[in-house]
């Protein structure tokens, strides 16, 4: 930060030489020129970023908007973002669409009761249906109003056993998270607090398993779990987490390396053994990193689809992701209910991410290539 232009051009505040008024003016001019350019650049950046953010957010808005529409609203074209519905009025016991119409008597709200040839339509005032107006339909604006269908949420969640899916997903996510954090923090401690040739080699092996495509172990694992009678249970999704995840080990080790070894030494002098120093020195120092790894795991496990699809066969065992995929395949035309179920699927990770985004984004940044 020391290399900012501020140190090159003296600013007004710490101007120690008021007598040099002439050169100062030109410097100030220069300064304002640099500033103007920088402000222009920032404005441009913000505009570009804003347009991108609009594109990013629009699909999410679409998901939420569609989840509140009924079937007729879904068919409106052009598709409105918000759940608009065409406003209607009753005339002589029948329902007709309402228009903001321009007549000889001025603007009034009229109902279209009959279409006539040549794009014309017969309009009446719902309050006084005796007078008919013949107008060009295209020239009138159809009235719309917001019509939220919150009942889509209970409807969607009850049409499929989403409650069961939700509980299944929670159990798998949290139990595997527990297994992952216990084992990965132990292993990370092992790789950060001990040094030997064998450990160096093993650490490279660990790093290379991050790249390993899961497919190469998938089929024997499936057969193995089948022999154990674990197919159609949560166990294949939970038990492997207790053997540490290479990626999380790497992330935690990077963090553990930043904790000064003197703290371990002090604990040793106080008579702590390795387990105690791990539990009471290293772990309490690493809460942010542990938290970041847990959040990453939560989002990964919550969204996982491949493994639940393979291992969970009966509907009562499914996770939300599998349930939503099946729901979508079976009831494609019920976009509103599917979007409502999607909102339920995406909301926990999004909320968790927004609450913890600082730690999260930093966590991902730590885990990035540079470590």
């Amino acid at each position, binding site marked *: 930060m020391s*290399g900012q232009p501020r140190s090159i051009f003296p600013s007004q505040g710490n101007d120690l030489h008021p007598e040099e008024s002439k050169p100062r003016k030109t410097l100030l001019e220069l300064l304002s020129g640099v500033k103007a350019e920088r402000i222009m650049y920032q404005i441009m950046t913000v505009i570009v970023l804003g347009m991108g953010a609009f594109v*990013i957010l629009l699909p999410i808005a679409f998901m939420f908007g569609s989840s509140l529409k009924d079937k007729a609203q879904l*068919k409106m074209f052009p598709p409105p973002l918000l759940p608009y519905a065409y406003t209607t009025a009753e005339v002589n016991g029948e329902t007709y669409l309402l228009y903001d119409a321009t007549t000889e008597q001025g603007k009034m709200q009229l109902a279209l009761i009959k279409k006539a040839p040549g794009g014309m339509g017969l309009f009446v005032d719902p309050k006084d249906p005796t007078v008919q107006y013949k107008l060009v339909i295209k020239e009138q604006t159809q009235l719309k109003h917001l019509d939220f269908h919150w009942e889509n949420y209970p409807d969607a969640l009850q049409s499929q056993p989403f409650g069961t899916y939700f509980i299944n997903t929670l159990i798998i996510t949290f139990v595997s998270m527990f297994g992952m954090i216990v084992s990965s923090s132990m292993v990370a401690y092992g790789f950060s607090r001990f040094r030997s040739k064998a450990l160096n080699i093993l650490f490279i092996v660990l790093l290379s398993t991050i790249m390993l495509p899961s497919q190469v172990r998938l089929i024997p694992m499936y057969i193995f779990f089948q022999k154990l009678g674990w197919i159609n249970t949560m166990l294949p999704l939970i038990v492997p987490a207790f053997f540490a995840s290479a990626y999380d080990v790497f992330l935690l080790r990077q963090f553990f390396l930043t904790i000064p070894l003197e703290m371990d030494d002090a604990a040793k002098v106080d008579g702590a053994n390795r387990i105690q120093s791990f539990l009471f020195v290293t772990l309490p120092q690493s809460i942010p990193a542990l938290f970041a790894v847990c959040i990453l795991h939560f989002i990964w496990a919550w969204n996982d689809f491949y493994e639940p699809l393979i291992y969970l066969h009966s509907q009562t065992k499914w996770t939300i992701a599998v349930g939503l995929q099946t729901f979508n395949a079976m009831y494609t035309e019920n976009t509103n209910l599917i979007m409502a179920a999607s909102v339920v699927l995406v909301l926990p990770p999004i909320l968790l991410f927004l609450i913890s985004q600082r730690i999260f984004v930093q966590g991902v940044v730590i885990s990035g290539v540079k470590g």
Partner: protein
Amino acid sequence: MASTHRFKLTLKQQDALWSYFFIGPWLIGLVLITISPMLASLYYSFNKYNILTPPQWVGLANYKKLFADPLFWQSIRVTLKFAIFALPLNLTIGYLLAVLLNQKVPGLNLWRTLYYLPSVISGVAVAVLWSRLFNPNLGWINYALSLIGIKGPAWLQSTIWAVPSLVIMSLWSVGGTMIIYLSGLQGVPTTLYEAARVDGANKLQTFFHVTLPMTSPVIFFNLIIGLIETFQYFTVVYTTTGGSGGPARSTLFYNLYLYQNAFSYFDMGYASAMAWVLFLFVLLLTLLVFRSSAVWVFYEGEIKQ
């Protein structure tokens, strides 16, 4: 601890024992759920195996069948077609975003959060949502195109446009690539930027002569990781096509075909052969990373310290 042993262990030996105690969970897992299944799948790849009857040794038959299988080549074509479009777009847009978000911009944290947001959304939800946006008649994308006078294609229902649709979907999650670039950009020493400024370099010159060369390992890393991930691409295309890879197998990705062989046709030997071809391909790419990327040298230095 040492006092309970009959032979007093040296401190070094004690440390070694402790180290294996701590890395134990991973070490056991390495044998049980990594190396053994890998070897088993290699073994299965030389067998005819449908789970119900015992494996039957067939030698190289699965591999021979694989290389003569038009669907295998179709799956590679589809995967590469996706990679050729998705990777350069993802890498470029992700990089430009990272460069923009690596400077002082008002609301920096908000932007980073917004751009990363789609990356935390489940692939199933992404597919379910975008298949609506791509709806040829009622979707927003064709509506937007109609506003500028273009009649949009049938997207996911078209054999030509299905893969490009998936490419567009993947760009929505470009924030994931951006974050990795950001960490790379933050690793560029500020002294280099200062030196460039002293030498009178402008913004573009600094970008091309400092930022880009300094982050090239990260770009390369992202490219390789992206290629590996493309060969494992599954959830979105399974959801948009109901697992079929349609229309007319135009989205039959490598991993989807592997899944079909394993869990639709229960041809475990054949699927294992596909898994090993994938593994060897990834191994090759990974070796490339090890060879030519300074990123990995960093780790080695860490361990030897």
